[in-house]
């Protein structure tokens, strides 16, 4: 501006205007030059149309045009469509995380109409098991766990409600922009126009905010803990929603990306009015309190009430039994002792060998009720209508106002450097101005709306990262690898996308579809690219594209841990389909839960159908991953986990062949075969293959396995063999 003013002063002629224009153009060029150096991914997705491909047969939608175009440039071609049996197994696992039933396979294979596949996809997207499947992917990102980790690994009694919130969000196809805002700023939705009291937060939005509190937490240490806690929120929000490793800039300017340390603290400043509730009485680990959040799902309050009653009743029954037995023990005692016996004395008395004074049932009942009661108070706590949430500080005069945020030198909590104001990442905005935070008209709540300002910026169609990052995550789950292969890091180390135009096109589609995640699933699984066979047909593929980044065939892959367990239960016919609710505690091998527990509030082993709900509901105890899931790379999250490893180890073989789960379920699978396929060994074998693998056996397989199908004992072995096949855990 100074330059142009100077020119204006010196040359007030028409000539001057001409020069001024040149200068202005130069300046614009200069500015846009600056922006151009802010290359991918910091600029908005390009407006782009799929390339023209001819001939266009075989293309189902825009995705295919981009994929085929890139393949053709390498002299490659896509593979033909997978068989229908392969396809239904693939898409069913992909969308609902469970194998298709033989009936569904049969109906789909028979249905020769062109719409059959599209209808199948619609059906699966409407299936509520879809939400259970896809919630897990989000929970991994949200570093979801039911305990706080560290010493004592204390229970987070209300975390499970967030898990259910995520299931609902996927099932209801909650627009992603809303999903973002609820999790970052669920407490800041209500518009405040007047001067009255602060409106109550909707229960669902309070539950959504649990997202910000799921990091591991240990004995707080004042300012240091607050600094670490807010830093963690900053890093996690940035990597999950923006796909940028902003956390690297906590201690130094980012080594690879354009994220200076200042930007880390400018982002952190959006969180600086976060207020945790003080710990409940009795919270020895001081992990902090919860906020009220009524049960809001239909029937949920009634369900919770009946669970509470059940537990109260069970407590009463136990007390009554104890009293009865104590009285009996006292009456048998030879000495005159008016005091009631201690619990351990009573137990010694109960556990005496060959007791004449109580029946075996009484003894068993005592131990059963004792086990249940050990966990009763924690279960009751989980059933309180509360959320592991947070809110903004009420501000002066009630609570602290907006504190000054400083750059912390080397990331240390006690080394403040320059003060900064809340602002968005400069690599994305091109400037370091403070964000405008819209306060209420009375400025009654100066501490409010900071996180909402951040959430709105993230959830804006103009944000270059948000849509790209999410469509890339979905792509990774459908195709085995993201277009950007590091889904939480779009920075330099990601190596960039394999198909930049496709990624941008998808991002724009996502925004045009009003952030509908289901619309993106639909687009991806209906593409021909998705429907390809999983073996390459082209001779040059190994030279041209050894990692199949260009997708000339579908990437075969192993099921995730949860899907392996759910499949076993599904095939045996014993999967409990009940949705939502308290964490479950399936039996663990070798009593390991007793060896890692810290108190009576932990793994409350349950037997029976409740323990056979889907794996998503398993208690996520940070100090104990269920060995079965662990063998298949399922881990309880400590920090945001953008993708799972897929290892191959002998421990998986031991787990599947010798392990408790398969041992328990194989007889039920066998019983199902007897029930559904009768006595004919050929029928049994046919049905066994249909149930486990969604196809019939071929001649060689028949010859190998028919002997097993002839006897009842053999059928159980057949069941175990099928569950141990590579094909059982791999999707073509």
């Amino acid at each position, binding site marked *: 501006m100074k330059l142009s003013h100077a020119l204006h002063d010196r040359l007030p002629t028409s000539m001057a205007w001409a020069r001024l224009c040149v200068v202005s153009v130069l300046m614009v060029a200069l500015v846009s030059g600056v922006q151009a150096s802010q290359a991918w991914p910091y600029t908005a997705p390009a407006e*782009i149309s799929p390339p023209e491909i001819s001939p266009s047969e075989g293309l189902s939608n825009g995705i295919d045009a981009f994929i085929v175009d890139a393949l053709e440039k390498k002299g490659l071609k896509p593979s033909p469509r997978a068989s229908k049996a392969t396809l239904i197994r693939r898409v069913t696992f992909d969308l609902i995380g469970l194998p298709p039933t033989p009936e569904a396979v049969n109906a789909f294979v028979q249905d020769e109409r062109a719409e059959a596949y599209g209808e199948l996809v619609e059906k699966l997207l409407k299936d509520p098991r879809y939400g259970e499947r896809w919630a897990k992917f989000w929970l991994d990102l949200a570093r979801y766990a039911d305990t706080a980790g560290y010493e004592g690994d204390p229970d987070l009694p209300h975390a499970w409600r967030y898990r259910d919130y995520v299931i609902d969000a996927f099932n209801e196809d909650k627009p992603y922009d809303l999903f973002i805002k609820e999790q970052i700023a669920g407490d800041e939705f209500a518009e405040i126009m007047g001067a009255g009291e602060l409106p109550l937060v909707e229960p669902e939005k309070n539950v959504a905010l649990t997202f910000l509190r799921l990091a591991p937490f240990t004995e707080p240490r004042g300012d240091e803990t607050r600094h670490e806690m807010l830093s963690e929120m900053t890093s996690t929000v940035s990597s999950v929603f923006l796909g940028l490793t902003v956390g690297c800039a906590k201690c130094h300017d980012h080594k690879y990306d354009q994220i200076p340390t200042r930007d880390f603290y400018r982002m952190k400043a959006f969180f600086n009015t976060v207020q945790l509730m003080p710990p409940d009485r009795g919270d020895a680990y001081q992990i902090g309190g919860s906020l009220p959040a009524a049960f809001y799902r239909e029937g949920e309050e009634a369900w919770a009430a009946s669970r509470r009653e059940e537990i109260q009743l069970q407590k009463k029954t136990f007390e009554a039994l104890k009293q009865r037995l104590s009285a009996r023990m006292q009456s048998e005692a030879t000495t005159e002792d008016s005091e009631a016996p201690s619990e351990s004395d009573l137990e010694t008395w109960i556990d005496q060998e060959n007791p004449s004074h109580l029946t075996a049932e009484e003894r068993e009942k005592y131990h059963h009720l004792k086990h249940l009661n050990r966990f009763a108070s924690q279960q009751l706590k989980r059933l309180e209508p509360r959320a592991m949430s947070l809110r903004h500080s009420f501000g002066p005069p009630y609570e602290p106002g907006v504190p000054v945020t400083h750059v912390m030198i080397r990331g240390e909590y006690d080394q403040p450097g320059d003060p900064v104001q809340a602002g968005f990442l400069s690599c994305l905005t091109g400037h370091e101005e403070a964000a405008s935070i819209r306060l209420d008209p009375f400025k009654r709540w100066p501490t409010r709306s900071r996180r909402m300002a951040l959430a709105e910026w993230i959830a804006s169609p103009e944000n270059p990262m948000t849509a790209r990052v999410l469509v890339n995550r979905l792509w990774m789950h459908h195709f085995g690898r993201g277009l950007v292969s590091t889904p939480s890091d779009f920075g330099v180390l990601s190596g960039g996308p394999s198909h*930049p135009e496709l990624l941008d096109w998808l991002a724009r589609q996502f925004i045009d579809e009003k952030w509908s995640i289901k619309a993106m699933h639909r687009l991806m699984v209906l593409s021909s690219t998705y429907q390809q066979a999983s073996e390459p047909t082209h001779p040059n593929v190994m030279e041209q594209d050894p990692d199949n980044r260009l997708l000339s065939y579908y990437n075969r892959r*192993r099921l995730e841990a949860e899907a392996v367990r759910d499949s076993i239960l599904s095939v045996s016919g014993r999967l409990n389909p009940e949705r939502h609710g308290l964490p479950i505690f399936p039996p663990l091998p070798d009593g390991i839960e007793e060896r890692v527990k810290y108190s009576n509030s932990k793994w409350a082993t349950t037997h029976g159908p409740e323990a056979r709900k889907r794996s998503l509901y398993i208690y996520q105890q940070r*100090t104990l991953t269920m060995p079965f899931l662990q063998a298949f790379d399922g881990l309880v999250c400590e920090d945001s986990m953008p993708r799972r490893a897929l*290892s191959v180890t002998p421990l998986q073989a031991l787990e599947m062949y*010798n392990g408790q789960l398969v041992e328990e379920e194989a007889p039920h699978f066998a019983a199902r075969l007897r029930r559904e396929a009768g006595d004919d060994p050929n029928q049994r074998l046919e049905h066994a293959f249909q149930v486990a693998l969604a196809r019939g056996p071929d001649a060689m397989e028949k010859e190998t396995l028919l002997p097993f199908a002839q006897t009842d004992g053999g059928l159980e072995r057949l069941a175990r063999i099928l569950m141990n096949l590579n094909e059982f855990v791999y999707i073509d």
Partner: protein
Amino acid sequence: MMHRRRFLTQTWNGIGALGLAGMLAEESTQASKATANPLTPQQPHLPGQAKHCIFLFMQGGVSQMDAFEHKPMLQQWHGKPIPGSPSVRGELQGRLSFPHVCVGSPFSFQQHGDSGRWFSELFPHMASQSDRMAFIHGIKTDNQNHGPSTYHVTTGSQFPGSPSVGSWIQYGLGTLNQNMPGYVVVQDPRGAPCNGAAVWANGYLPAVHQGTLLRDHGSPILNLQRPEGITLSQQREEFDAIRALNQRHAQARPIDTELEARIQAYELAFRMQQAAPEAVDLSAEPESMQKLYGLDRDETRGFGRQCLLARRMVERGVRFTLLVHGVQIGAHSWDDHSNVEAGMRKHSQEVDQPVSALLEDLHQRGLLEDTLVVWASEMGRTPFVNSPSLPKNPGREHNSYGLCMWMAGGRVRAGATAGETDPFSLRSVGEPIHIRDVHATILHLMGLEDERLTFQHAGRIRKLTDIGGHILHSLIA
């Protein structure tokens, strides 16, 4: 849209693009396929170093001035506040700003061996091994709470989510015995340490690098027993059927080496069923050996068994064995806030003879030169108790500036010392040795270079020591 290559050259100015390209290639393999066998033995970065490591972790914070640091001055201040330490900052300052009185060690000290190392009366057996050990005094960790400091010593970061030392070493070196896990953990039979399984977690490294917990009863590794009612020959029959079908499946899918790897994994599992129970069968050890490790006495049986198992693991090529003594809180932890005298007497008795037996036994079998043995705890303790006057049975507080560790075996320079604490054993004299320096030294002694043992995770090149550690060269022969 900018072309990818141009984007790379434009944005990477100054970074060796070739090196990065290599990393990206590695990353893309990480992302796309499970490596066929990540456990095959790898070439170490440095030749001639140890092949195995036994890491002895004492949960709770061992009191260094009641064990390995003789501080006569402390005796003179017994019952009085510590004399002015003007430059004390941070955590210690917090402790010192509260009423406190010094606690002299209730134990007598004596010098041992050619190195003349001081040991308290609590460690007579370990003292007999003094000429095999090298000590590090005044090690600093970044947090004085058990959870974070346990993470710091066992994973290099005080926050959850990083790989444990054993995971890094297995990642770097692979395993030597394909019939056994390469990284084995034996925890205290009385329970788990602070942070539980995170102490031996793989963090962001592939899951195969997590430690395998050996169980102290029943099957040593989970699921080694065949399903009930299935004989070995029936099992073989089923495995053969599985293999036949898997091979047919794989032949139709030649692109995936992973399928073949999984066929191999089943065969290895079959062999492990036989190899692993034998490996942990202590009844095969002669009575004299059981006695040497203290399996005949109640106090020493627990850790004696753990140490004897560790030696059997080394014999079978296990790369890294983590032994944990103590459970996270309570009487079985070294966390003696009160009555440090009784506490130390109890804990030391449980480990002294077994650890000494382990060093002697390894030496006699010629295994010590290939085996690095590390003694660690998550922190040291303070020379004082936070209390206005001397309690009847005083204890000691946490001290994240006073951790004392020792190493033996491999290329450790026997008798060497690094670091020194002040006359109160409060903290180091001069710049403290940071735990990351110790980690760098452990890696070096295992033939691995800290700066080269890296993994790309969450936008950064990660390593055990985070910002890099200084190798303690004085400890290396």
